[in-house]
């Protein structure tokens, strides 16, 4: 007479219970992807410099903005919208009643609004390019900003982890959780 011990059913039952906990599954999935994004932005932060060769905190801020959101039916990662412009590219236009964007072209202007320079004035060149400037120490104008009606940004797929990496990371962590 033989004896068969069913070891599969308890494990299957445990797996079924875990899979039924959709809130938890979605929460963990979102968290795994959020971690991947934060690691990716950390790598970008290490090499990130602005046009003046100064390391800036853009990718640190983007990394800090990454968070998960989940419900029993949805699993998502949310981050600052500036990442979308980097990833997908696009056109930036002034808002409200403003006609121009102000692009910093001098180190002193970086990270500041043009309005902070109280003694600034607009210079229009023969080619009809407009700049915001202040008087420099030598009496010559110090050009701070280029005024432009819009800017175009090329897409950069490397701004975020690729889809395959996202799937692989999420399934890896979920597998760990389900196998426990």
């Amino acid at each position: 007479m033989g004896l068969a011990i069913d070891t599969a059913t308890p494990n299957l039952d445990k797996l079924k219970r875990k899979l039924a906990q959709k809130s938890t599954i979605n929460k963990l999935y979102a968290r795994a992807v959020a971690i991947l994004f934060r690691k990716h932005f950390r790598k970008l932060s290490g090499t990130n410099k602005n046009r003046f060769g100064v390391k800036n905190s853009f990718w640190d801020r983007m990394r800090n903005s990454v968070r998960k959101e989940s419900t029993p039916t949805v699993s998502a990662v949310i981050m600052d919208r500036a990442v979308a412009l980097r990833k997908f590219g696009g056109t930036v236009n002034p808002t409200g009643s403003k006609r121009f964007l102000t692009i910093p072209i001098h180190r002193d202007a970086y990270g500041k609004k043009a309005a902070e320079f109280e003694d600034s004035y607009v210079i229009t060149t023969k080619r009809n390019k407009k700049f915001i400037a202040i008087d420099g120490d030598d009496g010559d104008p110090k050009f701070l900003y280029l005024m432009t009606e819009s800017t175009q940004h090329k897409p950069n797929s490397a701004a975020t982890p690729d889809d395959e990496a996202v799937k692989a990371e999420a399934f890896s962590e979920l597998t760990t959780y389900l196998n426990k």
Partner: protein
Amino acid sequence: MFTKPVTWADGVRRLLARGLLPTSLGTDDLRALDVGLKRRASFSARIENLQALQKINDVVKELIRGISPEDEALRGKKPLQMSVAEARFQVRKTFKELGVTVTDSGDVGTIKDPQSDQRINLIVSTQEQLAQGYGHFIAGHDPDILDVWPCQELVRVVDAEEPRDWEARWKRVGGQLYAGRMIALKNSDIWDRLGDPAIFKDGLGNPYPPFAFGSGMRVEDVSRDEAEELGVIARGTPAPLARARDVDEDAKVSLEGFDDELKQALLDNPEYVLDGGVLTLR
């Protein structure tokens, strides 16, 4: 996965539309956090003008809150989100209007000058990071999250001109290295000590980053598998217990370096209490 930009309105239909705070916080918690943030801004900025503090608080809230459906509805008419440059501008403008400045003219333009670039940058960036750090701390202490990611690693995200020796700090507070990495359980008190101003003068008094003023160090989750492989925890170790935390717990600072007049002004404030040379919120 999104293959093209999703407008906020679309996102809201599909996702929970909350700010950067964990969704487990209810309305009362969010209100308490608002009050707590104002008190912290008061504390760590070392500025006593309440209107100035309120402006810092308001600006940081705008910076971190994300985009709402109301913002989307006004797309093109006003910026969808406050920029860091706008945040700094508003803080500086308020300080100017309120006359928040230095008493010693020799300090104008230095880090002691509330209107200086250095000071404004420090205030805005520190407060933004603290608010986000608190949110991540709470989110990381969800019991399900703790089970899968029980540990975290101290990592550098932003290079510093004069980096502090964080490995020495780590060891000083009892941390161990695992394959050269600074990793500990999320609920370890190593994290409290790492930011303790009684141990490190530049400490901000919280168990989450930024641990010190102007620090580029952050934390990153370490999975159970990886933690077991590195020997941080033994195989089968139960998930660490979650820590609850009120944001006010983290507002403490050493009085060393404060001038006598400011020390007295702070000690006269019934909201603060001095304990072992460290000032904290009552």
